[in-house]
């Protein structure tokens, strides 16, 4: 068994074990340490400097996202000095660009907004001269607003290290630095495949889903954990809905390590659910009666299929029946249908489209 030891955060003794960071332990115990660049799925980055803490016996402030716990370590998370540095960070970020929360899609779950709230900052004391960057609305599903970007680099890390599309990077440097797609193309003209991973990890409103715009602020949405219906991988989706209508989907973040998709989604799982909101969506089986498709119940439909299969098999033999399955159902369901075809119907006529 792993040996445990105690560390002290703000004087409170907390049991933990080696290999964790101070930030991990603080989060486990609901101690708020702001982070703008660290994300559980993109790791430490050291860029935002918001998570700095004071450690007894160590000179200067340390990044809690990278600092591994040691037996007996004593940490302070909210000293006057730390809060002053955090205030400066928020002031600097708010002073540069356009951070207007009122109609922002991220209002209510923006990590910069949270940090400003906790520090009591309503507006920056000084505004930098700043040149507005045009919105990038060139892609199908994502709106990029560089004026809200805080250059945390999460999107870049997720694009390069998680989904490995290598589309995003930083271009230029100093305050000219900004996120680029390929060689600074509009996203829609770049090699981006619109998986939307970057939107999911963005701490602010710089990357948002186009179709979610104006559909409702975060606090009005319901979150339901579902399994993606597109392929057999079985990705976990946190589906956000309002009034039972689909708004957007995120890869499940909770216990993401244990999910098959590790919090990620592909373009279909991310953007392929708008059909749920269609009025003409099929929601019952249809049976053709007198040349016209009519709504039916499941029992009725299945009875009809069973009796027709039995009739056809008796009349023409099992070889006259074939089955075609799909990658949109699971391995187990495919297997079950194979057993049904061969064992129950008695035919080898079973195939699979093997694509979505």
């Amino acid at each position, binding site marked *: 068994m792993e040996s445990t030891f105690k560390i002290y955060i703000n004087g409170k003794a907390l049991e933990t074990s080696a290999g964790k960071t101070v930030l991990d332990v603080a989060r486990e115990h609901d101690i708020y340490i702001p982070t703008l660049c660290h994300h559980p799925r993109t790791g430490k*980055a050291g860029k935002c400097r918001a998570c700095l803490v004071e450690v007894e016996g160590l000179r200067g402030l340390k990044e809690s996202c990278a600092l591994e716990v040691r037996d007996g370590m004593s940490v302070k998370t909210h000293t006057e000095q730390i809060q002053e540095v955090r205030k400066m960070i928020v002031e600097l970020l708010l002073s540069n660009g356009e951070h207007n929360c009122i109609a922002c899609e991220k209002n209510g779950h923006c990590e910069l907004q949270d940090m400003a709230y906790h520090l009591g900052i309503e507006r920056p004391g000084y505004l930098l001269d700043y040149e507005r960057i045009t919105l990038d609305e060139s892609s199908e599903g994502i709106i990029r607003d560089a004026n809200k970007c805080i250059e945390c680099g999460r999107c870049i890390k997720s694009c*390069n290290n998680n989904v490995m599309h290598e589309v995003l990077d*930083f271009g230029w440097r100093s305050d000219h630095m900004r996120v680029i797609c390929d060689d600074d193309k509009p996203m829609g003209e770049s090699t981006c495949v619109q998986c939307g991973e970057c939107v999911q990890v963005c701490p602010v409103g710089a990357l948002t889903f186009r179709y979610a715009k104006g559909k409702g602020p975060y606090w009005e949405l319901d979150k339901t954990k579902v399994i993606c219906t597109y392929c057999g991988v079985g990705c976990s989706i946190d589906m956000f809905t309002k009034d039972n209508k689909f708004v957007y989907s995120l890869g499940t973040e909770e216990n993401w390590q244990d999910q098959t998709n590790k919090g990620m989604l592909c373009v279909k799982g991310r953007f392929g659910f708008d059909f749920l909101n269609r009025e003409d969506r099929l929601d019952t089986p249809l049976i053709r009666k007198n040349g016209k498709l009519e709504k039916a119940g499941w029992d009725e439909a299945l009875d009809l299929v069973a009796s027709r299969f039995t009739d056809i098999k008796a009349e023409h033999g099992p070889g006259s029946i074939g089955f075609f399955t799909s990658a949109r159902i699971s391995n187990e369901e495919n297997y079950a249908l194979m057993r049904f075809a061969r064992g129950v119907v008695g035919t080898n006529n079973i195939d699979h489209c093997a694509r979505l």
Partner: protein
Amino acid sequence: MNDNIKSRIQQIMGRYPRKESALLPALMLVQKENGNNLTKELVAEVADVIGVSLSRAFGVATYYSMFNVSRPVGKYHLQVDTNIPATIMGAVEIFNYLSDKLGIKHGETTPDGLFTLSKVECLASCGTCPVIQVNERYYELMTKEKVDMLIDSLRKGIMPDLPVEYNWGTLCNVLLKNRGVENAKSIAVYKQLGGYKTLTKALKMSPEEIIQAVKDSQLRGRGGAGFPTGIKWGFVPKNTGKPVYLICNADEGEPGTFKDRQILAYDPHLLLEGMIISAHALGCKQAFIYIRGEFGWIAEILEKAIDEAKQDGQLNDLSIVVHRGAGSYVCGEETALIESLEGKRGLPRMKPPFPAIEGLYGCPTIVNNVETLASIPYIVEHGADAFKQWGSKAGYGFKLFGVSGAVNKPGAYECPMGISFDELIEMAGGYKGKIKGVIIGGLSVPIVTPEELKKGPGLKLDYESPAEYGTSLGSGGVMVIGEEFTMPEIAARTIQFYHHESCGQCTPCRLGSTMMTQLLEKIADGNGQEGDIERVLWLCNNIRGNTLCPTGEAYAHPVITMVTKFRDEFEAMIPKKA
């Protein structure tokens, strides 16, 4: 891109353990072949040949200041260094003269496409400012007459030879002992002067013996941080199964510093001998010299010296690759340098892990400054005690200093560690006129006033005495600021440099330097407002010590001292409310 260039890029890729490292030299090559311009198409082709993503290649191409991406430059790119040491030696006048003469401003190109004029940051030519870099060549100690000669010649298509007289001197006769010898950079002359004898001795010693000698000498890193070299070497883990890399840091980017080039350009074999000995001590088979991009001609000198040493059998199984940077101050920081050598944007890494454990390509790596490595042969040849004949426990041995600004003989001087500041100024010909302040260790250290210099036992140049004067030895780049400059303009120009060079990755440095620049420029222009000075100080106090790499404190410390020690001058620039 033609096949010839493609195959040259492939050749460059072959020099490195990992092909991505070829990204900077490949972009540099392609740009040179395309009339000093880099297009998006060329960047894409380079990315394709090397096998990196387009975003990474474009990110690199736009990070480094020497790449002209989507920013066409003329046939001759006139780059005038206007950093602090240059400014205090009259560079702004030269820039304005050029600007008037050519009828173009910063960043503009003459209608005939012949000249582009740019203000650039420190070119490590501080003792010989004003300096103009024309494409890859330096023109130093420029006067208006020399500018006329230069432009006339360039209009005829000829890069002229304009004479420069360098000031230098040595009290120790080690690092600069061959500085005045004609062609000491050739291996034949170097060997006649006794060169490579120490290497023969070193190869008979065990690595442990050499490391011990370096530890005993208490040699401290000469790049600026002053970390004990022997202790750094001792951090390299044994038997990891990974190669050990040695990198010579020849980035020489700290404004006020022009010492390493004295060795690199005039006595390259001294550096190579030091590197070969150090590599033997570290069990390293692959070494690199990371040289700042602007030192193109020095890179050629080094490559030639490496060839000669190889032909002469001095390298044994060691390979040394010269890797040119492409314009980034931050790449002087060792982890940023490693990133740059890996073909990436020069962004400092989080530490730990330190490079000695996990450096280049994730392998144990030692990064040492040129002067540090060039000091090794003396220690191995004569022993630690001989090295310690100079200096005291506050720092032993010999040290190169560069003196620029308001002195009569600005130049490079080799002195015993612990030499008094007054003595060094005397070597440099004494002060020229009245002075306003001195910066003794490169631009990143606090400024000292003449009044402060008069107090106490006298400032000595070692690792301890400067602390008593609220400053530090840094890289040994001494800048003497004459009385004709106002401190708000010096402070504004100082922060402009760090703002230009901030890698951008961490918030306090990226936006803090932006805000400080805007505030200090406003004050220097007479448009400051009440509260601006306090805001600058508030930023400095919260930036220092809290950035990802030391760049934040590198500008917070000097700016704090400029503002607090000369506060009257700043207050006077702020219009009072009626």
